[in-house]
């Protein structure tokens, strides 16, 4: 036992060392890129109008953060993303269960759903502008529609993949359709639905940003677009940097959900146990 615990300790130490080495390497790489970038634009190796420079980007960020621009536009984008995500997720799950439960309806709607699914959601933006204007609702809806389809298809697949034997088992116990829905179909399909939700999170941000890029006067996407139209490369990079931070934060949320979901994942893989 002591031998094995010593071996485990050894491996753990090795892993910590490795993680430290990789982290340090990444920092060095980042510093090198920033240094070369800064030096290159200063020495006019690169055209500073085209690639800007880390210093200029930093100044932009400092200015935006001091005058509130940064917080104002970030808040707008976050609001659109979250609202779109919540609306799309709720609608996707409800529709997935409603249509998945009804075989005839699913069959009837199948080609229509697929047709709408096939459209790149970005292409719907002009239509949404006509319908909903260029304000925040348009971005929320664009994000929601993108999320909705991802969540919907996963939920639908989940409902269709419910283990028949479990449904039969409950029916044999005298369960009513509603009891079967709540005790077998929902918990079993929820694992799939959550996978859809997890995939959809970054898409909510994409939907909101695209809406802002196309038509708006606020949001991070607007900052990118308006800086670009003024040939303000530093502004574009600064806005992209903010966007990167937002996306990384969202990915952190996804990781968190992933960890919470591990229970479900194990469930869905062990369910089809053969005799």
């Amino acid at each position, binding site marked *: 036992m002591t031998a094995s615990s010593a071996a485990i300790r050894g491996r753990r130490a090795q892993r910590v060392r490795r993680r430290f080495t990789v982290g340090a390497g990444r920092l060095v790489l980042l510093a090198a890129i920033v240094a070369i970038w800064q030096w290159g634009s200063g020495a006019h190796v690169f055209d500073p109008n085209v690639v800007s420079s880390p210093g200029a980007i930093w100044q932009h960020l400092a200015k935006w953060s001091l005058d509130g621009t940064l917080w104002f536009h970030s808040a707008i984008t976050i609001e659109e993303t979250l609202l779109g995500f919540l609306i799309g997720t709720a609608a996707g799950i409800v529709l997935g269960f409603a249509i998945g439960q009804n075989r005839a309806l699913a069959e009837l709607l199948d080609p229509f759903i697929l047709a709408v699914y096939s459209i790149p959601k970005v292409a719907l933006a002009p239509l949404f502008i006509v319908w909903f204007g260029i304000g925040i609702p348009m971005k929320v809806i664009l994000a929601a529609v993108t999320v909705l389809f991802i969540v919907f298809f996963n939920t639908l697949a989940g409902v269709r993949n419910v283990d028949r034997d479990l449904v039969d088992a409950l029916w044999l116990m*005298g369960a009513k359709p509603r009891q079967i829905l709540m*005790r077998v179909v929902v918990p079993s399909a929820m694992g799939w639905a959550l996978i859809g939700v997890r995939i959809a999170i970054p898409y909510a941000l994409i939907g909101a940003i695209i809406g802002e890029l196309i038509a708006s006067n606020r949001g991070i996407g607007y900052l990118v677009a308006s800086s670009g139209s003024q040939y303000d490369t530093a502004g574009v990079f600064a806005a992209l940097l903010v966007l990167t931070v937002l996306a990384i934060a969202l990915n952190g949320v996804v990781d968190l959900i992933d960890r919470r979901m591990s229970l479900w994942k194990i469930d869905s893989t062990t369910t089809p146990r053969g*005799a």
Partner: protein
Amino acid sequence: MISAIALRDVGKIFVRDDSDAVEVLEHVDLEIAAGSFVTLVGRSGCGKSTLLNIVAGLIVPSSGTIAFAGEPPAYPRPDVGYLTQKDTLLPWRDVLRNVALPLELRGVEKAAREKRARELLALVGLAHAERRYPRELSGGMQRRASLARMLASDPRILLLDEPFGALDAQLRAELQHELLRLWSGSGKTVVFVTHDIDEALVLADRVVVLQGGGRVAADVEVAFARPRDARSVRTAPDFVALHERLLEALGASAGAAA
């Protein structure tokens, strides 16, 4: 005397597509006496699982009738418990909540159903595992949990479809013993499907050998004294003769099926 289960002229044809149909059961007549332990023995594909599914109500027969205690069937019927080959414990519920499920569906309140579930878990030797999830249980423990869940609705009739088929010999003997212990004196009617003659003889009052199409190839009373265990049955004087007879019937049915 009215039989617990009576099948009359039952047939089942599975239609695969327009040109292909398989007749799994034809003209099956079978009566099961109330309170008896009957094993149905047959080779794979003889229709024994289909027969059990029909009794349980999962499959509607193409022809013929079925009666419970002389009454035409109304499904679903919680007085029939069905233990399938495959475990159907809900993976997102722990053992206790799985066993309590039949009572929960019936609207029994939480404290009462959990008390009953704990009693049943103690009965099948799983009292220590009530908070575990099905995936954390061994094959034998899953079977025990399934058995407890089936008993929770206190069914009068137990249908078991090769319930211990996937277990090793040791564990199978153990669970056979447990099943007999649970059944004896309960007055429940048991229909137990297996392809294992030894298992059939250890358990049953009566062994029915089915041919292809579900026709009866042999119908034998097993009079070994109860309580029994695998050992006492195997050393009983008639065991070899009975075993031989059933094996012959099973062999003949294989010939008929081919």
